[in-house]
């Protein structure tokens, strides 16, 4: 009544963006380089931050060139960090908007939006006796969060990176090895080529007995899933993917027609092809599209489909509009004209 049409929080945000009760935000406090193309970002989360479990990720909304972009990053700090700060560790993706911005341009003091941490790529309440971490590139991040969180009795890590200097957290890993807390095998793919999953027998003879957490590019994870399944120990393997499983339809866009997409709440209509996720189509058109993982796992993007049909980019399946039909915009593309309630 005092502040209509605004809310009192709109005024309080002017002075206390991190206060309890505000939309969850964080303030970037520092950016430390890790390798030539990766950096760790220290963030002070808002008062309502609930705390994470090692291995989880946080969805973060960063303003890049004035436009808010949401991405997911695994939390690399331990859960009991004294000062309450969290860290994420970002590796630059070629032409990647958010990763490059965070590594090269973000400055201390910048506010970002946060969501509460989520993800089930975590350790069970009591750590297993024998553990294997199988990681590549930036996939080391959730695992580092675990390694920093607890002392394992018996942990082996196989990590792939192009060259020794590309290994993120290299110094810290060496230290863990030196004090006998970790057994580490580095695979340098620039010299030795991609890891052949069958080599595990030689690198970690007891791999099949170990509870395994794997995170890295799709090729590695697909191979690992087959390998573990082939040996009948699939339930020992947990994987975390940073990118969606590649679309089975529209490779090269052949024969996949899109259509006019109407965002009826915003009142905008744009043409879309049959392979671009509706999430990206809407964002490009200036429509407010909620999102999270951007790969079909978090359901942060579900939106009612009011009319028309969409195609699931993972399976090729067509969903048609009916009252109550919700779609995940991050993995759905137009299959003819459609109307999305945003």
């Amino acid at each position, binding site marked *: 009544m005092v502040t209509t049409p605004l809310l009192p929080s709109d005024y309080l945000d002017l002075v206390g963006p991190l206060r309890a009760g505000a939309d969850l935000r964080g303030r970037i406090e520092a950016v430390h380089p890790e390798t030539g193309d990766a950096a760790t970002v220290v963030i002070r989360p808002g008062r309502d931050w609930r705390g994470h479990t090692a291995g989880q990720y946080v969805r973060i909304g960063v303003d890049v060139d004035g*436009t808010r972009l949401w991405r997911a990053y695994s939390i690399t700090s331990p859960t009991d960090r004294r000062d309450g700060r969290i860290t994420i560790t970002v590796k630059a993706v070629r032409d990647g908007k958010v990763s490059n911005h965070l590594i090269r341009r973000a400055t201390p003091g910048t506010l970002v939006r946060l969501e509460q941490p989520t993800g089930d790529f975590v350790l069970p309440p009591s750590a297993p006796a024998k553990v294997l971490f199988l990681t590549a590139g930036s996939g080391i991040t959730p695992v580092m969060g675990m390694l920093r969180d607890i002392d394992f009795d018996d942990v082996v890590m196989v990590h792939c990176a192009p060259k020794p200097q590309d290994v993120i957290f290299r110094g810290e890993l060496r230290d863990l090895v030196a004090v006998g807390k970790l057994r580490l095998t580095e695979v340098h793919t620039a010299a030795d080529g991609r890891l052949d999953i069958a080599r595990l027998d030689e690198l970690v003879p007891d791999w099949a007995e170990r509870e395994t957490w794997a995170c890295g590019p799709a090729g590695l994870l697909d191979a690992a899933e087959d390998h573990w399944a082939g040996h009948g120990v699939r339930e020992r393997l947990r994987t975390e993917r940073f990118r969606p499983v590649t679309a089975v339809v529209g490779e090269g866009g052949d024969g996949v027609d899109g259509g006019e997409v109407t965002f009826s709440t915003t009142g905008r209509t744009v043409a879309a092809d049959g392979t671009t996720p509706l999430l990206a189509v809407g964002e490009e058109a*200036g429509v407010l599209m909620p999102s999270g993982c951007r790969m079909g796992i978090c359901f942060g993007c579900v939106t009612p489909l009011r009319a028309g049909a969409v195609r699931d980019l993972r399976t090729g399946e067509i969903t048609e509009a009916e009252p109550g039909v919700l779609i995940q915009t991050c993995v759905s593309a137009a299959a003819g004209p459609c109307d999305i309630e945003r």
Partner: protein
Amino acid sequence: MTAIDPTAHLTAEQIEELGRELDAIRDEVIAGRGEKDAAYIRRVISAQRKLELASRGVLLFSIFPPAWLLGTAGLSVAKIIENMEIGHNVLHGQWDWMRDPKIHSTTWEWDHVSPSEQWKHSHNELHHTYTNVIGKDNDLGYGIMRVDEDQKWHPFHLGQPLWNLVNACFFEYGIAAYDLELGKNLHRSRRKDPEFRARARAVGRKIRKQALKDYVVHPLLSGPSFPTTLAATFTANLVRNIWSHSVIMCGHFPEGVQVFERRSIEGETRGQWYLRQMMGSANISGSRAMHFMTGNLSHQIEHHLFPDLPSNRYAEVAVKVRALFEKYELEYVTGPLPKQVFSAWRKVFRLSLPNRKREVTTRDRERELVAA
């Protein structure tokens, strides 16, 4: 006025070329939008909120005349900025590209009795699409005034200087009534229409909230200063109404601005649409502060060409647009605020009477053309 078509010298090909050149100006701004623009609007919003808070704070002691003056002036300015540079422009979607849900056309609600949703429909969809088309664009005289010779005279128009004055003082209510299309919808047959009733209720709720805040809650908070704070908020709303009414009158009513026949927009091309916006709008010249306080509607021509470009860019766009006016030998209607306001008012007075001699109107011209 419309007696001579000021665009007659342009060929169809030239008009499309003009359209392409305008598209290029637009694309350039869109490609260059970025961090600085985002910082600009955030700064304006933050400053406006602080000014409003401070002014309302001062008004708690409005019983003392200097506090009353200071608080009322501050609140008037804050309310103007909120409606003009922030509200109007956010609701146009000028800042949607930032994808910040706090500064987005679909979530923004403004300090105005017309709910954003309804205003967006009548303003963005109707007025901006049908700019200055008689019978289509209700902004043309708001349905209560005759602002062009081509509009038919009715004895009711005799009173239009008075209607215009009243509309200026209570402009936000005028806008709300007009967004509801009250004139049309109060007809017996329409009054019961459930959609209209829902919209009318929404306006009622908004008016209640606005009035409660400005005329009850804040005066009450001021304790012994109740009557003076009440007078202060009333004055601030009055100032804001008269100011925005004046600015908006300057956008389309001054002499030299063209109006268009319903038929003339059938099958309109992009180039022709642009041309209509160019000929149907007028600017206000002045300092940077002046542009800011008008919400950059002083760049009305540029705003009508590119309604969704960020307002802070209109000044640079204007330089290029003006060059195009020169290149295509078109009249760029502009002038200082007092001159334009005077020009608009003079028209309101003049057209309150029937056309003096039979002036040649567009309609006549078209009839001649058809005959020939």
